């Protein structure tokens, strides 16, 4: 462990710097950071240089390794190899207290605040400093006032966190970091929960921080913010740093292209001609809206239709309402406004349709979150293979489950989609993600769906299986099944979908023809940046 204060004090004038020491005008330097989770390379040989007193953006798709990289920097994970240099000195960060000691502060996407504490108490938490709170509280209050004035971070010091608007909660997080003398501030998707006005306010604060010499790292997938506020930007793709750029020399479309990679020679599954105009509709959604329990608008005014024999892809950054859309259409959640007609059955807030009824209607749902919804981890594969069909006549004999039939069916499903190991008695949790997914898909496809709702069909699935899954989906399409495909994999959507709708914050922001879609443009649409003059929208 290097004493950070020494390194700091010695900043410009250090004599005989150690051989491995770096450029001390850099607040952060990463050299060859690699991190694997099992077979997944989350980070591979990452190099990064961030100059002191700048705002640096890191962009990348979901799963590109942004969060892993920042978790390494903040001590949640240990890198398998590589080194971290802070102010030119190598440091070892084993946990968050090392990170704090090194002057790193982090503002997480999901705030780490105690709701029932006041702002002051939250800021002091972990840095109380004295057995009696009152003494340190007055000192903290003074210090908070100074910080708030200096960085234009106005907060109500004595309000409970739960009473504050989200933007102010975030400022509390920033104050927490500054109170601990953070000189490097990492913000993970900071505007995800903010209104545009709050986001603007945040950027004012970030610029103020920068002027005082604080280094800011901004992780986001919103390219417009990168263009607006950063000095330099790095692009992560599939765990690797693909580019370091000066923000003023780049453009949103270039960043989008770098983020998603160049166009791959993906297989094209598109049908030869258009569907006959008289084709019936499998799903028709009219003005669908959902407001969740906390009052947040999750879906807003959605209207679209999926014809029989058509695949409609839903593109979007995760968390923009796609999951809710699947839940509503499959009967798990209720819409607040509007209605939809699915395989001839109308459903709305007043006329709810249960998931079991949906299954009877041959509306099948392959859920996005397979571990939470798709199967029960502690059940055997055989038990999970009848989840949702436990009442089906062929599995029941006067209330008793026909275990032999269930096991035999499971074995057949496993063989059909090459689930390994093909052992129905194994616990569901002990299969790899890809094999769990194949089992769920096999279960749902076996019922010959007329409407198929699929979420992230190939997340965490190996290449060979991806192809198999894609072919199954196409097979269903050719049988006349109406398919709604939600995926964060643009390649997948582009090679499968006849039409693509793009969701952003619960709304449809664009619709493109699957055949004509291009990745750059979709990337921009997903960040809701496509209305910029950079590129014309096709929608």
């Amino acid at each position, binding site marked *: 462990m290097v004493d950070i204060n020494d390194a700091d004090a010695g900043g410009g004038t250090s004599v005989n710097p150690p051989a491995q020491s770096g450029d001390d005008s850099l607040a952060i330097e990463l050299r060859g950071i690699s991190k694997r989770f099992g077979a997944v390379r989350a980070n591979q040989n990452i190099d990064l240089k961030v100059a002191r007193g700048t705002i640096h953006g890191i962009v990348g798709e979901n799963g590109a390794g942004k969060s892993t990289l920042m978790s390494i920097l903040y001590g949640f994970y240990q890198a398998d190899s590589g080194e971290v240099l802070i102010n030119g000195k190598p440091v070892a960060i084993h946990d968050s207290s090392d990170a704090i000691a090194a002057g790193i502060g982090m503002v997480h996407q999901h705030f780490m605040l105690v709701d029932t504490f006041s702002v002051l108490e939250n800021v002091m938490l972990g840095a109380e400093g004295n057995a009696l709170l009152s003494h340190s509280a007055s000192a903290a209050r003074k210090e908070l006032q100074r910080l708030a004035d200096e960085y234009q971070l106005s907060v109500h010091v004595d309000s409970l966190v739960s009473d504050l608007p989200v933007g102010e909660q975030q400022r509390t997080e920033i104050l927490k970091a500054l109170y601990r003398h953070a000189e490097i501030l990492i913000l993970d998707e900071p505007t995800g929960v903010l209104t545009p006005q709050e986001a603007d306010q945040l950027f004012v604060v970030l610029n103020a921080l920068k002027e005082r010499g604080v280094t800011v790292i901004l992780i986001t997938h919103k390219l417009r913010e990168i263009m607006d506020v950063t000095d330099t930007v790095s692009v992560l793709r599939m765990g690797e740093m693909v580019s370091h750029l000066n923000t003023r020399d780049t453009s949103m479309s270039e960043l989008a292209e770098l983020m998603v990679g160049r166009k791959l020679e993906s297989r094209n599954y598109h049908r030869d001609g258009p569907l006959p105009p008289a084709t019936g509709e499998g799903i028709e959604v009219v003005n669908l809206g959902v407001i969740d329990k906390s009052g947040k608008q999750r879906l807003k005014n959605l209207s679209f239709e999926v014809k029989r024999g058509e695949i409609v892809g839903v593109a979007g950054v995760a968390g923009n309402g796609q999951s809710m859309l699947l839940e509503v259409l499959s009967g798990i959640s209720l819409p607040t406004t509007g209605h939809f007609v699915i395989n001839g059955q109308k459903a709305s807030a007043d006329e709810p349709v249960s998931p079991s009824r949906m299954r009877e209607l041959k509306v099948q749902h392959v859920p996005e979150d397979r571990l939470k919804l798709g199967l029960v981890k502690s059940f055997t594969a055989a038990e999970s293979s009848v989840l949702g069909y436990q009442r089906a006549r062929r599995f029941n004999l006067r209330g008793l*489950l026909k275990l032999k039939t269930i096991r035999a069916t499971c074995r057949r499903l496993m063989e059909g989609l090459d689930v390994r190991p093909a052992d129905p008695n194994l616990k569901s949790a002990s299969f790899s993600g890809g094999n769990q997914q194949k089992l769920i898909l096999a279960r749902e496809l076996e019922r010959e769906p007329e409407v198929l709702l699929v979420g992230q069909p190939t997340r965490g699935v190996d290449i060979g299986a991806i192809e198999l899954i894609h072919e199954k989906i196409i097979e269903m399409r050719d049988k006349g099944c109406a398919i709604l495909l939600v995926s964060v994999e643009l390649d997948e959507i582009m090679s499968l979908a006849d039409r693509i709708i793009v969701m952003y914050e619960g709304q449809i922001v664009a619709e493109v023809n699957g055949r004509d879609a291009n990745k750059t443009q979709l990337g921009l649409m997903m960040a809701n940046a496509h209305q910029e003059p950079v590129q014309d929208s096709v929608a």
Partner: protein
Amino acid sequence: MSINTSSIPLPAWLEIGLIPVLNIVMALFFSGLIMLAIGVNPIEAVGIMINGAFGYDEAIGYTLYYTTNFIFTGLAVAVAFHANLFNIGGEGQAYIGGLGVGLVFLLLDKYLPMILLIPLGIMAAGLFGAAWAYIPAWLQAHRGSHIVITTIMFNFIASSIMVYLLVNVLIKPGQMSPETRQFDESSWLPFMHEVLGWFGMEVTRSPLNLSLVFALLCCVFVWVYIWRTRWGYELRTSGQSEAAARYAGIKPKTVIITAMCVSGALAGFVAVNEIMGVHHRLLLNFTAGYGFTGIAVSLMGRNHPVGIIMASLLFGVLYQGGAELAFEIPKITREMVVAIQGLIILFSGALALMLRPWVVQGYLKFKPVDEVVPA
């Protein structure tokens, strides 16, 4: 860095065999220390206890009579537990189950033959127990009132209701003790010594009665219900993952209510053993804490009927052998026996998983590497 061992599965013989045995050994070890401290030879004490529980047929009768109660309450806790509900209200449900039996018999024992009275009594015990569990279940399902709190409170309410009814309403006129008149003999569940007597076996009198057979039938029923029926499947799904349950079209609210009613009925069956089998009248406090001990029984039996039978037997031994111990060795008081029971509950209930990380580590050391499945 230490690994999280709780997610590593163990083979059944370790999980439900070795670990519970280790827990009991730990509890006995600490009990032994206490006995040494008061100057009693622990080995001798264990001998007296075992002899007191199994040494002669009256002892065996008493042991199995206690066991019967623990099977009912243990099963009750286990069924709720599979639905991820913690039913602390077994005591009250058993008590109210007794009220059901009492009311039915007070009304009908003079008019109906045994062949009808016995099934009616059993049904009344189950229905009243279920009804008493239904209220907290409904509150949990529809109003979000926490089942642990409500079931605890319902124990007190049940207790107060019973005191009121027995003192003011159901009491046999012209006597001081708050209990009903004795039921007609046609409603008595045959004692085991009587049943065995029909087959020519001479057994000493004990409170053990045919309820034990019924309890074992309930074990089979619970096993089939939980693992072999679709209702049990839905109950387990809902208990393991509410999200998966909703995905599968299962209504968690219905599951909560069903599971609690089944649980309450099982607890109510304590009255079959106590009222129909032994006391033949309704009286105060016949539940004697069996409902609470059922929690420890279920935890120790890993919520599985076979485990529950074994754990019930252990507690039966503790109750009967413990009483014998207090009788034989004056230094060991009744309170001391309760302390030993407490230690067993502590080690096999609250600290049930204390030794597991070490067992897992030992297991991993000897386990072939290729068997390890990545998370």
